[in-house]
């Protein structure tokens, strides 16, 4: 007797959320199947790969290919433009590390100017990542949202401490998208979505950043959380967990030892750049398998590989 495949299509679906505007606008979500199971039902929207660009140029010692990619780029705008050329890049993540009061402490005005420069350099959708300082991120996101009214960016992230200001200033006042950040906990993720919608942020304006970990650094918690979020969304039609998931993979993997130890220090580990790329690829593919609708990566090689993987599974 032959094997008869039975398609597992749920009645509920992941919510669709549009990032960006114009021709390059990107829709996340829409799936009615388990992650990546295109054989159960063709994808409405493919998972998307975005490229991280920081206002502080990346450290490229030991990373010749990354250095080569951005060679000759003088300004932030140049780097954004170059990032947008990566094969498979569907959106750009502007990571404003330099705003951190504990670091370069760039002013909100400086960041706004950089955001505008980036917006002029690419028409891909923009995802704005802050500096992790709650006070600064609130001011920063509000100002950038006001400065890019027509670009429909996504702001990463609103947390329990600052969701009100970011929700009100970015999503409610300007109709932009907000990433609800929780730390690998399904209940907190849901609670934040409930609180944001009660504040008045439309559910369709919310994307979830459920938190991540580099592969090998407690990723099983991430996988189990995402599994349960998807199960609640699809099997139980829990509308407060049906938001698409975005995972800033690069922000995790580029700080672990596999990615930063130089080859000189660890000759037995081989090429640093290869290791760093592999960390990104392994983590990103695991995130996509667990249910991420979008991942953010740094290296052109990882972007290309993950985009190719997605294309092959479609």
């Amino acid at each position, binding site marked *: 007797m032959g094997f008869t495949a039975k398609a597992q299509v749920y009645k509920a679906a992941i919510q669709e959320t549009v990032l960006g505007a114009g021709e390059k606008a990107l829709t996340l979500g829409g799936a009615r199947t388990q992650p990546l199971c295109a054989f159960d039902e063709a994808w409405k929207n493919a998972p998307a790969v975005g490229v991280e660009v920081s206002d502080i140029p990346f450290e490229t010692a030991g990373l010749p290919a990354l250095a080569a990619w951005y060679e000759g780029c003088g300004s932030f705008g140049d780097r954004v433009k170059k990032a947008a050329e990566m094969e498979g890049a569907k959106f750009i993540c502007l990571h404003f590390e330099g705003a951190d009061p504990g670091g370069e402490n760039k002013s909100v005005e400086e960041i706004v100017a950089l955001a505008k420069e980036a917006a002029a350099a690419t028409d891909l959708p923009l995802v704005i990542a802050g500096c992790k300082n709650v006070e600064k991120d609130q001011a920063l996101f*509000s100002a950038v949202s006001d400065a890019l009214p027509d670009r429909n960016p996504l702001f990463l992230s609103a947390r329990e401490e600052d969701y009100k*200001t970011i929700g009100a*200033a970015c999503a*409610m*006042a300007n109709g932009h998208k907000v990433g609800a950040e929780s730390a690998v*906990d399904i209940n*907190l993720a849901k609670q934040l979505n409930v609180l944001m919608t009660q504040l008045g942020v439309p559910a369709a304006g919310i994307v979830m950043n459920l938190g991540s970990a580099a592969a090998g650094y407690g990723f099983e918690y991430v996988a189990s959380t995402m599994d*349960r979020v998807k199960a609640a969304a699809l*099997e*139980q039609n829990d509308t407060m967990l049906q938001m698409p998931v975005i995972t800033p993979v690069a922000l995790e993997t580029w700080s672990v030892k596999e990615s930063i130890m130089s080859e000189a220090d660890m000759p037995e580990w081989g090429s640093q750049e290869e290791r760093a790329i592999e960390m990104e690829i392994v983590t990103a593919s695991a995130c996509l398998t667990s249910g991420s609708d979008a991942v953010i990566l740094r290296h052109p090689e990882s972007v290309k590989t993950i985009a190719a993987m997605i294309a092959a599974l479609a």
Partner: protein
Amino acid sequence: MGLFDVVFHGSDEMYALAETAVKETLEKIGEDAPVAFGSTAYYLACIKAYTGLEVTNMAQLRDALTPIRAMMTRNRRTADIFHSGIATVMAAEVIEACKYAVNPLPYGENENPNDNKYHGHMTDAEVRELGVPLVTRDIPGFVVLIDEAPTDEQAVALIKGYQSRGIFVFLLGGIIDQAMRKGVKMGFPVRVVPVGPDIIGVSHIISLVVRAAFIFGNIQPNDYVNMNRYTMDRIFAFVNAFSPVSDMTVACGAGAIAEGFPVITNEVKDMDWRVPKSLVINTDVDTWIDCSLEARGIKLKVTNIDVPVAVSSAFEGEIIRKGDMQLEADGSRKDCLELVRTKDVREIEDHKITLVGKDIDEFGVGEKICMATIVEVGGAKMQPDFEPVMERKIHSFVNCLEGIMHTGQRDLIRIRVSKAAFEAGFRMKHFGELLYAKIKNEYEAVVDKCQVTIYTEPEKVHELRIEANKIYDARDDRVSKLSDESVDVFYTCILCQSFSPSHVCIVTPERLGLCGAVSWMDAKATNQLDPNGPCQIVPKERVVDEEIGIWEDVNEAVQTYSHGALEQVSLYSIMQDPMTSCGCFECICGIEPFSNGVVIVNREHTGVTPVGMTFSELASMTGGGVQTPGFMGHGRHFIPSKKFMKAEGGLQRIVWMPKALKESVAEKLNANAKELYGIENFTDMIADETIVEGDPEALVAFLTEKGHPALGLEPMM
């Protein structure tokens, strides 16, 4: 003249002014002349909000008068007052628009309106600047102060009073001159904005309100009902109008009330129409702040705690030794107590701290003193059931003070104040300050007002102690009378899902959470205080089997909150779908097959049980949110409950417990065993580690000797 006539007259007056203004302006600049307030995408926002019209030139402004007039209905119903009130504000906006059409800077030559005497129109950027903190409630609300206060001092006291509470202040009319005479700093950045010289300027404030509703609430133009619902629900504004109040002001006030903004005034003439919390007549201007905040339902967050020592959980475990001690309140030697009481809100003066008796500096060093702390709270949603929940938190609140040690509760407390804290200036009133701030913040949802009284006068404390003991007894009585049958709802608790993702506790009066920390009362309070939190209501309407403890509602809740991992739970059985366990249970019970009974072991007991396993070995059988028939984690206080494995015969199945655990539950266990089975001193029949450890045969021998009832019961498996 009654209030209806005043409103109608006032709105007629404003309309006539608007008509004249339009006529004169048309003559001056013609009907094609543009009309705009500048820096707004919402045209004349009040008119757009309530008529849908987008006015851009004088001809359109003239035409807008017709729908405004049409809204001024005169049927002597409340709705007519409201409609006329809103239309009066629109008429005022027409007048202001005429001013701006002639001169884009009608209130002074400075481009920055904060440099002019009157601010006038507010830009969309300013709406957003104020709107974001209003939405997030970082600014708890705003007040519109209209006309001249009885004295300059009262004007300033009100403005500063609101300012210090974080309330945004708008000024109209004579009070602006009063503020200027007193040198009050004004402008958008300091959150005190002088809007205009008379009531007509109110249109700029309502313009801000409706634009906030457009921007943050996505309210559509010409949607009267939803606009007013949004402003009522989301914009925490109110009006303070000083006597004499003009008819036009009363008419605009009606518009404010239509939007949900109460009006507080000291005008008594013609105010025959009173609506609680909407139109408040209060002739004592000095009490307006509290009165207004209550009318609008605004609760303030207490941000700084006024004590001379640090407050942090870092000091929670701090021990004060005798030598370092300034004084102590020792409940074992002297009369001491703590009590939280609910009181009528009107009888509480918020933030009142009173000391009756001597202060710390009046006692000798090292003295043992009498001390009673009485916290009185009130609020629309406060329930006496929350009193013990708050009272129990006093311990952790006070312990967070640097240099203060606190143990115990009720009349068995001990508080030590260190010499260092005393030298830093710590006095009795600071206990009050701390408790006030903590209770207001932590229990914001239910506590509107809070006052604290501290007694150190020995006779008074003695009297209070007798009184308090009656209250404690009454509470205990109520809790002990609560049964699963006597309540309408149970609660979920998913506090520990962060590490045990599919575990759900169902908390009932007779079965507390397995961690031992969440009783039904706690869960109820948690639910009220944080409606989106870990404790959710589970109705118990669709009973399947009350004997075993099965309800359809409970099963649905378990399915939902375990995210599908669990299908059903029997609350009173350890064999059939027992409740799951996370990892933090106080005790675990497991079947002992030789005796037909169960053994119970608490976390602290490290020895082996008669089933041959230790606590941690037993725990590994059932943790992590899985159902393992025959094994179950539970709270200590569940042991003597009449619902303890009721489906399998109940308490009489207990054959072994560690001695310490047995002693801690003995009183209630014996009482319930007597009531249920007529057995005296049931705990004497239960073996412990001093009688038998790992040997089941020795256990059966002991039970046989004692005539333990479990031996005669049907086997569980």
